[in-house]
């Protein structure tokens, strides 16, 4: 009498709890306990938080940093880097260059094996190289084949020639030959890049569009094999016994048990032993000092610059204003107080300090020094005055600073907003938009100044220098200078390292000082902390970073 609907309600409850239990079982791997740091140390396993799901594990397709880091462990190119970051032969045991520097011949190692035991062959490389330029695959990174100046690469990408005309051929199972249009001094270092990793034709044919999206299709030839991959949640690689240099690999597994992007969460994860490496932003750096962690730093390779829109009719088509901007900003104040990460360096030229010079052990910057006095408000203002007098204006019109929407980008743009409004004595608007929107606006020339950054694709000054050529699609400021283009073109053709540096040096001076198309300001540093006892983790500017291949727990102490 009192409970007319009780039976119905209880059946509902039963149904609900069933559904509930089902969801639990579905989503949680029940009790997959993660290993403690001590257990990891004993087992030589490393936990890492990449922050994000790799957008693509297909070596040919993409080269973002997360995917790049995983791929470096999973695959190995003809060349590779050793524990100091120097180029050494990888899957190829020998490389020979013809006298004119235009033909490279690689001999594949006899003991180079795929993770399923099959031998790595020259055909695997030929397939990968052709796949890279094949219009049907539409790799975003196909331009790197043009940078390497492989014969017919440009024509194939432009669909003017069939793919099999590419100047990369397997002469037999173990000999691979690449023909170049011009000698390219940094060609060997390109061969360590993930777009030139070997790819198994049989796997691509078997999996089609699903290649590299599942565990079965991802058979590599590198030091680690992929054993577990739960999308957006976790990934695990284990040492591959088939790897030719397995002796040199100390750690037995590299795992991302958690993928969390938030900087605070990532730091908290490290503090509680959930990851063995954590990057520190400005806030976390302060925290790490308070927590007395051993902070390390490195340069991540990227250079940041304020790029001005030099299109006619835009405010910064005037060279005096551009120069005023470049000497008006205070690079050291920015580095010391705003960015304030160990490893940060001010940038004057666009080419970062670590780029190699013409000789071993030397750097580009040592051979082509570039610096000037900045933060010079008086001189900047006098240049602005000259501009106003020339154009008979009373005041500089207000202009827009385009920038990204990450918290760092927002902070930086607000900082430069204030500096620039002081230099030009006018209103500076900040247009802070998501990353992709920013690139679209750059492409559409909808900005006056944009805060842009560039990370190197390969270890040579050219990866920065060719950006500002007229026909480069990344030259969003549309800087046009025929002398600059001429210098860069002759540098690209030159086989003499010293001459190349000299040519790039002259071009850089035009870009930075004479024409001031960009105001480079920041060589980005990164602070990070490693778990106690973990050593041998290499931080790289180019290629996969971080590189755990030569890491080990215990380090020197364990060896004794």
């Amino acid at each position, binding site marked *: 009498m009192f409970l007319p*609907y009780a039976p*119905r*309600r209880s059946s509902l409850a039963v149904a609900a709890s069933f559904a509930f239990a089902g*969801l*639990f079982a579905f989503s*949680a791997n*029940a*009790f997959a*306990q*993660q290993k403690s740091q001590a257990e990891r140390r004993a087992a030589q396993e490393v936990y890492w*938080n990449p922050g994000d*799901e*790799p*957008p*693509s594990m*297909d070596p040919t*397709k*993409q080269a*973002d940093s997360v995917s790049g880091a995983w791929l470096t462990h999973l695959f190995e190119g003809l060349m590779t880097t050793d524990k100091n970051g120097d180029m050494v032969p990888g899957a190829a045991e020998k490389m020979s260059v013809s006298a004119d520097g235009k033909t490279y011949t690689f001999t594949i190692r006899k003991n180079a094996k795929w993770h399923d035991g099959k031998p790595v062959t020259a055909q695997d490389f030929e397939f990968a190289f052709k796949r890279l330029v094949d*219009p*049907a695959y*539409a*790799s*975003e990174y196909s*331009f790197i084949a*043009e940078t390497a100046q492989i014969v017919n690469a440009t024509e194939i*990408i*432009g*669909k003017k020639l069939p793919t099999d005309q590419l100047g990369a051929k397997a002469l037999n199972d173990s000999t691979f030959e690449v023909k170049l249009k011009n000698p390219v001094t940094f060609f060997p270092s390109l061969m360590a890049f993930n777009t030139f990793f070997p790819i198994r034709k049989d796997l691509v044919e078997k999996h089609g569009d*699903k290649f590299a*999206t599942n565990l079965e299709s991802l058979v590599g030839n590198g030091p680690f094999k992929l054993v577990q991959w*739960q*999308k*957006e*949640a*976790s990934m695990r690689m284990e040492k591959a016994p088939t790897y030719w240099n397995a002796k040199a690999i100390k750690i037995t597994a590299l795992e991302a048990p*958690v*993928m*969390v992007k*938030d900087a*605070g*969460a990532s730091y*908290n*994860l490290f*503090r*509680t*032993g*959930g990851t063995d490496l954590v990057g520190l932003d400005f806030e976390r750096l302060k925290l790490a000092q308070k*927590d007395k962690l051993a902070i390390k730093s490195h340069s991540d390779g990227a250079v940041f610059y304020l790029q001005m829109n030099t299109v006619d009719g835009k405010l910064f088509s005037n060279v005096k204003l551009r120069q005023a901007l470049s000497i008006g900003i205070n690079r050291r104040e920015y580095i010391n107080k705003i960015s304030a990460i160990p490893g940060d360096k001010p940038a004057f030229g666009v080419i970062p300090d670590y780029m190699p010079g013409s000789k071993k052990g030397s750097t580009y910057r040592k051979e082509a020094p570039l610096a000037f006095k900045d933060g010079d408000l008086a001189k900047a203002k006098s240049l602005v005055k000259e501009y106003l007098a020339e154009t008979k204006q009373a005041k500089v019109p207000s202009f827009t600073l385009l920038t990204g929407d990450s918290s760092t980008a927002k902070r930086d743009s607000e900082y430069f907003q204030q500096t620039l409004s002081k230099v030009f004595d006018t209103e500076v608007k900040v247009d802070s*938009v*998501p990353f*992709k*929107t920013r*690139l*679209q*606006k750059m*492409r559409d020339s909808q900005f006056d100044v944009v805060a842009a950054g560039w990370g190197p694709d390969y270890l040579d000054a050219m990866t920065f220098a060719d950006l500002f050529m007229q026909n480069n*699609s*990344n030259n*969003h400021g549309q800087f046009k200078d025929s002398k600059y283009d001429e210098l860069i073109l002759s540098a690209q053709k030159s086989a003499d390292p010293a001459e190349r540096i000299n040519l790039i040096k002259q071009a850089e001076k035009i870009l930075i000082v004479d024409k001031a198309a960009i105001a480079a300001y920041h060589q980005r540093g990164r602070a990070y902390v490693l778990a106690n006892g973990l050593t041998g983790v290499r931080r790289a500017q180019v290629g996969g970073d971080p590189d755990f291949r030569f890491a080990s727990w215990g380090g020197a102490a364990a060896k004794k």
Partner: protein
Amino acid sequence: MRLARFIFKRLLLALVTLFTLFTITFVLTRAVPGDPLVKTKEIPEETRRNLEARYGLDKPLFEQYLLALKNTASGNLGESFRTIGREVNDIIAEQFPVSASIGLVAVVFGTFVGLGLGIAAALYRNSLIDRAAMFLCVAGISLPSFLFAYMFQYFLAVYPLTELGVDPQTWLRPAGWGELRDYILPSFALSLGTIALITRMMRSQMVEVSFSEYVKTAKAKGVSTLRLLFLHQIRNAIMPVVSILGPLVVAVMGGGLIIENIFGIPGLGKAFLNSITNNDYSVIMGLTIFFGGFFIIVNLITDVLYGLIDPRIRVNA
């Protein structure tokens, strides 16, 4: 029969809704500057054309719209632009249960706590308990859940592990997914809104009911306090609360947008935010349509159940 007609009519309306939603989303995604092919670096024109052809972006907009509509209607939500080769259907199949289970845990937990608090606040009206509950409620409703997420992560996971020396194997971890303990922090942070909402609702319902004739009658008849509370007051006050539970699950899952990023949970919220920042057309559209459909179905179920449970309400066809 009336129920069947009711459901049929609602489903018809749902179709119209989904179509509207599809169109709005299509227009909005295309209105966002940039397209999914804009990546870190500018790609050469040739490559770009090759890519556009591959994804069908070279066709006129209206044609793209019709094609997408056809595919969506046949249940194929397309392929992600960002994570190459990943189907939107797979994203939903793998990541929705994660978001849903956290949302459910949060709602169930929040409902129980909220009911308790609401009843206590109503019974001891204007007392200290009432005021404390009220303050908690407002904090829960007003402060965004991510702020609590930061605090919980630190005070409940990091602090005990680093400062009090608790064994990490036996305690909560600050972020992660795959173990049962990983439910606790995010659900807790998410449940605060629910607790607040339910407490407020339950309190006012309880007050309302306590002035009703049947409670007065029961009191006059000498029904014991406990019996009165459970059989008369709570049972009647709880009805409207039940009606909001369905929509609440959906709302709570919306709160997961940020929470999932803080706790490293591979749910749909994370996927949605990623897709927005990457102009990932197919994922944005797919997830929005999916959420729209889910929302409609949850509402429909709630309405039907509510009609079944509460005899005073008859679904009107």
